[in-house]
């Protein structure tokens, strides 16, 4: 099993993509195949988390580290694979109700499955160039789902997404090449061993190139313009998957490379800078959310804001607080679930009330009280109200801020929470409480069963994390326990067993 395990998270969605590409003519079969694949991925993720990252790195092709490409699903990778699978299941389940994706383009599911493979690949790999390859897959599939809308609006979004992300991708490629040139290695462990040999000034500069490219992928200030320019054009279940996962891969890569692989050589000043970038990101993100009236745009800006929190945790982790790295993991997992669910529920609200625009809808609470409760769970979690998942995530970050005496960042974090509260309250006041502006409005008949089930499932996860946070905190702490300058890689002979 352990020979198979490290590649399963990639092979399952990849195989599903092939299978669904072969069954374009039967949308039902396509969805079933994709669901089967996602459930299999979920089972794999659960198993990986259950064994708690004890699977050793595997040199693919039988080539020993550092010569071939190694996959290594440690604690962090396993958790990320699990949450990715969960997102895929939720998105597909939601999709089967047809909300926002009816008629569904036959290629949507294969492309999404390819995207999932890209995401899990990035979480599985322990090789810098290979990481780049998975980013490429994510880029191309994201462009695909954006362009599937086909209208000029979608194409404009696609174009802006392409322009900035291509820049980020090229920068990433440049960084990978430069780092390879400077160290002679691509394998994470080998890089960790070789990096101290590079003069510190040069290493810092190389990490800046790498960092900037990943910050762009994460949606950090001032490189986030592609995100609000494009996300709101996607249909709800696709948006949930894209918005839940893609920026988080950038964040994961920053965490992995900054706090693990290059932890020994990354200068503290880099993390200081990251902290300020994070502060600006969280503030400007939430301000953007305060400006908008389209629920998808509001939520898209909240991604940026929350990314700021995670980046802050990464910065604190890089400045020497291992618990903060665990906080970043916890925060990421919580945020993926919550943000995806908010997009799903926004889709439901729009389906029932007729629009994503808060100025055109209302009366949801009176018509569907349970839907508003369903919305409240992720919304309050995003704000950080106890005992929901977001509260613990925030407490973990705040604790680290207090511990390190980062008072200005603390003020940013608290202020942004207030604005997040404002923003969620805005959705609540306008969509839920205010009577529908259309007199005599009746909620639309929507076949929403599976979509509601998906949203409830994710809300259940949020509640579970919130009520029993110990499990996930333990897992996050264990996941980053081995972070930092790794063991020396034997420079000896690899080769076939």
């Amino acid at each position, binding site marked *: 099993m352990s020979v198979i395990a*490290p590649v399963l998270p990639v092979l399952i969605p990849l195989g599903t993509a092939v299978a669904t*590409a072969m069954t374009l003519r039967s949308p039902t079969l396509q969805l079933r195949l994709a669901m089967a694949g996602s459930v299999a991925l979920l089972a794999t993720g659960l198993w990986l988390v259950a064994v708690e990252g004890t699977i050793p790195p595997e040199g693919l092709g039988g080539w020993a580290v550092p010569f071939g490409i190694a996959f290594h699903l440690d604690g962090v990778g396993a958790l990320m694979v699990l949450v990715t699978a969960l997102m895929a299941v939720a998105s597909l389940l939601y999709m089967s109700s047809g909300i926002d994706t009816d008629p569904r383009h036959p290629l949507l599911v294969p492309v999404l499955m390819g995207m999932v493979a890209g995401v899990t690949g990035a979480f599985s790999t322990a090789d810098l160039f290979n990481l780049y390859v998975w980013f490429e897959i994510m880029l191309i599939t994201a462009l695909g789902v954006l362009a599937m809308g086909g209208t000029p609006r979608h194409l404009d979004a696609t174009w802006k997404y392409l322009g900035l992300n291509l820049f980020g991708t090229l920068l990433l490629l440049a960084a990978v090449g430069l780092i390879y040139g400077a160290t002679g290695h691509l394998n994470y462990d080998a890089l960790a061993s070789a990096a101290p040999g590079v003069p510190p000034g040069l290493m810092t500069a190389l990490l800046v190139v790498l960092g900037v490219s990943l910050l762009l992928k994460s949606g950090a200030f001032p490189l986030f313009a592609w995100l609000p320019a494009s996300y709101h054009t996607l249909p709800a279940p696709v948006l949930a998957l894209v918005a839940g996962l893609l920026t988080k891969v950038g964040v994961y890569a920053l965490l992995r490379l900054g706090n693990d692989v290059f932890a020994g050589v990354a200068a503290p000043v880099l993390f200081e800078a990251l902290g300020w970038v994070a502060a600006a990101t969280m503030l400007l993100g939430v*301000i953007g959310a305060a400006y908008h009236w389209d629920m998808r745009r509001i939520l898209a800006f909240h991604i940026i804001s929350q990314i700021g929190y995670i980046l802050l945790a990464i910065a604190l982790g890089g400045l020497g607080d291992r618990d903060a790295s665990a906080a970043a993991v916890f925060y990421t997992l919580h945020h993926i679930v919550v943000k995806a669910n908010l997009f799903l529920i926004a889709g439901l609200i729009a389906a029932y009330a007729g629009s994503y625009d808060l100025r055109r809808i209302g009366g949801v609470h009176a018509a569907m009280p349970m839907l508003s409760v369903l919305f409240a769970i992720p919304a309050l979690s995003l704000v950080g109200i106890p005992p929901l998942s977001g509260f613990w995530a925030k407490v973990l970050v705040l604790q680290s801020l207090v511990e390190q005496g980062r008072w200005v960042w603390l003020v940013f974090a608290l202020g942004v929470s*207030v604005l997040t509260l404002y923003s969620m309250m805005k959705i609540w006041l306008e969509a839920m409480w205010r009577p529908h502006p259309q007199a005599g409005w009746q909620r639309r008949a929507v076949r929403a069963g599976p979509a509601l089930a998906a949203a409830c499932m994710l809300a259940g996860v949020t509640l579970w994390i919130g009520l029993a946070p110990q499990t996930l905190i333990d897992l996050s702490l264990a996941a980053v326990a081995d972070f930092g300058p790794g063991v020396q890689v034997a420079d000896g002979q690899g080769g076939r067993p």
Partner: protein
Amino acid sequence: MADATHADPDHAHADTAHAGLSLVACALWIALPASVLAAVLWLATHGPLPVAVSRDWVPALGVSFAFRIDGLSLMMLLLISGIGVAVFSYAGAYMAGDPKQVRLYGLLTAFMLAMAGAVTADDVILLFLFWEATSILSFLLVGLKHDKPEARKSAQQALLVTGTGGLALLAGLLILVQQFGTTQLSAIVAGMADSGPTPLSNAALLLIFVGCFTKSAQFPFHFWLPNAMAAPTPVSAYLHSATMVKLGVFLLARFDAGAGEWPLWTMLLQAVGSITAAWGMTLALSERDLKRILAWSTVATLGTLVVLVGLPGPEASLAVGSLLLAHALYKAPLFFVAGNVDHGAGTRIIDNLGNLRRSMPLTAVAAALAGLSMAGLPLSFGYVVKVVTYEAKAVEGVLTWVPLANQIFTALAVAVAGTAAIRLFWWNPGGVEAPAAHECSWGMVLPPLVVAGAGLVLGFYPGIVTELLLGVAGAMETTRPGVVALPTPAEQLNPADIWGTVGATLLAGGFILYFWDFLHRVLMRPFAVVARMGARAFFDASLAALPRIAARVTRGLQHGNGPRYMMLAVVATLAALAAVLPRALADVALPVWEAPSAGLATGVAMIVAGAVAVLLLRDRFVLILAAGLVGYGSAVVFLFLGAPDVAFTQFVVETVFVIIAAAVLIALRGGGKAQVHADRSMPVALLLAGALASAVTALLVAVIARPFDPVLSDYFGSVSVPEAFGRNVVNVILVDFRAVDTLGEITVIALSFMAALPLLQRLMASTADIATQAGGRRVVMLDVVAGPLYRVILIASIVVYFRGHNEPGGGFIGGLLAVTATILWAIAHGSRAAEARLPFGNALVLTAAGFGLGAAAGLPAWLYGLPYMTHLWATIPLGITDLKVSTVYLFDLGVYLAVWGGLGGYVLHLLGRMRQDDREGSVT
């Protein structure tokens, strides 16, 4: 305000709707607080305090379900459950028949539990949980009638203020947790008493103050409370008078044992409390709505409580307990009275009310009983509080203005009590009488009567609560104070004492009551001036400014101009690089300039020429050729860097690209000039691009200035033949050493085709007209040679694929050759015919099969327990020579097919509409 001016909005549907609850159902709801009250009373009479229970919750953070009930908690629990019973009973009648009654009961019950949790939690995180829960529930209760804009606005205001304060509280608590290494509240308080003030704990205290001041509506956060009166009366009586707003005072009292002697504590609490008491009470004069008048007096009382918490000495702690109790016993009934007046007379505006004793006699009695206590007349519990407070202020360390503020507060309190108890029921200065005022049902009359009556009973027998009050004081002090004798009725009636404590106040209060309307008119203008500068104005301005600022900032950042986004990204990258490049370059000895070989220079020149030409040229065909020049230049560079294999691949890729692009242009009749965008940012963009290129180049120079560690390439070179059985190292790297990268790349090819297909289909649909004109063009020569040529190219591509492992070639180049064959066929016979000739007859299936095969080629290794993508080799003896077979060839075949299907599919779709016979039905 608005709902006070028109009749009785709560009961609009009272007669028609039957969605309200039956009497039994109401009784069951009331049983909830009643059972809590019973438990609390049992605890008060039986249990030795404090009682504590604890169970781990989040050990990683030290958080546990820890509850601890001491005298202070007990007092709060008593208020929560006792007033709860009254409020639940009142709500049964008040909301009778209203469909929202169940919701109200549900929320009130949740609120009661949250309050009970907040006052008993002995873990700061747990405390914060309940604290936030009360804020959220308050939001929902204030907004109960959420179809009204003012209800929504008030709810929003209340939650924003208390939510902000909550976050400050959390920060303060976390600092204390950090400082004392525990989340246990009692341990933290004890630790504070031991350690004394430090800068950090003072900062924490300030943050906690913000939390408590917002919750208890202290200056300058006092403004939200009167606005929260948009809530139904039971909610106002419960949350905004008796319980939730006391939570801030409660938490301050909790910390009194720890920080009560700290200078920051005594100074700030006395100052803020006094301002709130005096100013809050004065603001009552600005109102005409009875409920809002009462709300201001609540604000002021909370201020007095804060002052008392801030005062040193056990007497003050005793006074805190007494005032907490007394206030609940008179203010809740007064709110009920306001609700009854609203219900019975249809308005709460005092100008339109008077002499209500005739129509509402029982409510009048309740108002009188509560008013007595509020005014602090002897034989009421209010008087007992007066006496105790008087003693509390006789200690040292009282700020000079505290007594003055207290005088203003008490005098106005008398006037407010008079307004509610006398003016409305026994007097009619407005001269307008509500025509159809009627008494309310028993359900609405009994609760105020009973609660206010209890205040009177306690005035006669203050001894009943001595133990309770001592318990409160004990919780607030490090040592429990000795036995205190509360004034007996006989002592209360001592004329000298009366004059000394309340006489002057009563006179002044009576004066204000009499001239209330006059004072209101006189003070309106100054009130308005202050209101413009006040915290509420600041809050409103901030709330109004937020969308404006957000709009400006967001439009500035997210302006929608793609090229400017790019420029910002480049500028940011440059700025980051500029900060680190100097040190990077200083770290290495820069290499000596070596003149490049002529070949290398040619390649570089080609790249540069191509790139510059792309910028300047406008003719589309020439543009494609110029772009191709960049690729060919790269190929030349590879060639002279000693990588002929890569160079060969690059040549093929570039050629195919040029062919495809040109073919598509012909198909779309898109030759001619490209449009030139007159973009003023072009020079800046050029400059930025140049700067970024220079910066990256500088970094590259710094990297190559150091010796390269060739461990990987050496290894590949040394084991390629003996272990991977291939002489072409490049191919072995692609299909074996780093096969998973290649798998990713063919996935990219396949997925990019899938991603582009919807767009291609749409594009083709929109250019159908052009295609019609183009249709019918045929190159006869091609028809003739296409057949043989197609086969020749395909065979060649297969040969290239097979020899790739040892000689230059491989699946990728083979696939590209196959694509050119397909292009040839498409030009000769049309895209559909070309696609039909593909394996599976479908480009999409072909490319999917390709990357599926590539991925599957790694699986057989598992049968032998080897890692994924470990290639297996076998030798088949053929007599003359042995044939080596391997999964490597399967993998490379996957590459071949994925490229053929993916890139071929692109071309077929772009060429799709070239021929007329392709027009019906799209390819794939």
